[in-house]
C-alpha cells in the first residue's frame, strides 16, 4: 500500500468508507482482547437491570474499528498521531442480527507545514451518528 500524496488532498475529500457488522461474538472477542469485562456488553439480563435497551458495544470497540479505514488508507498503522472521539449514542447489538456500523472518513483540515491531515469520521448505526468530534490526525510526510 502506498502513502497518499499530501498535495493531492483537498478539504472535503472522502478518503475511505466502510461498513462493519458487529455481532455478540465481536463483543466477547473485544472484551477478551481489551480486558473490559463489564457484563453490560454480553449479558441481556444485566443490561436490562440497569435500564439499557439491550447489550451495548463497548465504546472503545466502536472507536477502535472506526479508525481502521483511515489506517488502511494511509497504509501504515504508525502514522496516526492523534485520535479523539466523543461517545454520543450507544450501539445496541442484537443477538441475532448484530449491528451494522458505517464509517465515512473525510479530509477535515490540512496542515501543510507538518504534511499532516485531519480526517473527520462520521460513524453511524441505524441512521444515527454514534460518535461526535471523531478526528484523526495522520502524518503524510517522509519519516
Amino acid at each position, binding site marked *: 500500500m502506498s502513502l497518499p500524496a499530501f498535495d493531492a488532498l483537498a478539504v472535503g475529500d472522502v478518503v475511505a468508507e466502510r461498513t462493519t457488522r458487529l455481532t455478540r461474538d465481536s463483543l466477547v472477542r*473485544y472484551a477478551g482482547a481489551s480486558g473490559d469485562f463489564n457484563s453490560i456488553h454480553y449479558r441481556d439480563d444485566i443490561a436490562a437491570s440497569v435500564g439499557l435497551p439491550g447489550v451495548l458495544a463497548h465504546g472503545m470497540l466502536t472507536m477502535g474499528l472506526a479508525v*481502521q479505514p483511515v489506517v488502511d488508507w494511509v*497504509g501504515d498503522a504508525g502514522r496516526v*498521531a492523534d485520535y479523539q*472521539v*466523543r461517545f454520543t449514542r450507544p450501539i445496541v447489538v442484537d443477538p441475532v442480527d448484530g449491528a451494522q456500523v458505517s464509517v465515512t472518513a473525510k479530509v477535515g483540515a490540512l496542515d501543510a507545514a507538518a504534511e499532516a491531515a485531519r480526517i473527520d469520521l462520521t460513524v453511524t448505526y441505524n441512521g444515527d451518528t454514534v460518535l461526535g468530534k471523531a478526528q*484523526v490526525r495522520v502524518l503524510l510526510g517522509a519519516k
Partner: protein
Amino acid sequence: MNPELVGRAFPPTSPYLVGREKVREFARAVFATNPINLDPAAAREAGYADVVAPPTFAVVVQEHTLAQLLAEPDGGIDFTRVVHGDQRFTFSRPIVAGDELTAQLAVTAVKTLGAHSMVTAESTMTDPSGAHVVTAISTLVVRGDES
C-alpha cells in the same frame, strides 16, 4: 465526586510489556486489516521493530491508571454509574510489540453539571528511557441520582 482529586500525585503503574500476540489479538478484535498490525515481516519492512499496535490499544495500559482512580478511597466515584464521555490518544510514536510502558495518572479536571459530575483523567505513557510514547485522556461522566 471529590474535587481534591485534581493535582493529586499517583504512583506510576508497574511496567506493561506489550506482547506480539496481544497486539495481534487486539488488532483482530478492532477489525484491523493493515498488515503492519498483524505481520512482523510487514512491520519490519515498514521500519518498525515488530507489529504496531492499533491506536486504541493504549487503552489497555491506560486501564491500569483508571483502576487507580476508581479505587481512590475518598474519590467518591461509583463505578456502576460511570459512562465514558470522551477519549483521546496523542502519540509521540506508535506502540510496538516489545515496548515496556509505564503510565502516570493525573486528574486534570473535576466538574459538576446538575446531578452529574465529570472527571478528566490523563495517563502519560513512557518507555524505560523516560521518553514519551502516548498520552491517553478520558472524560468519565458519573451519573447522579435520577429524580
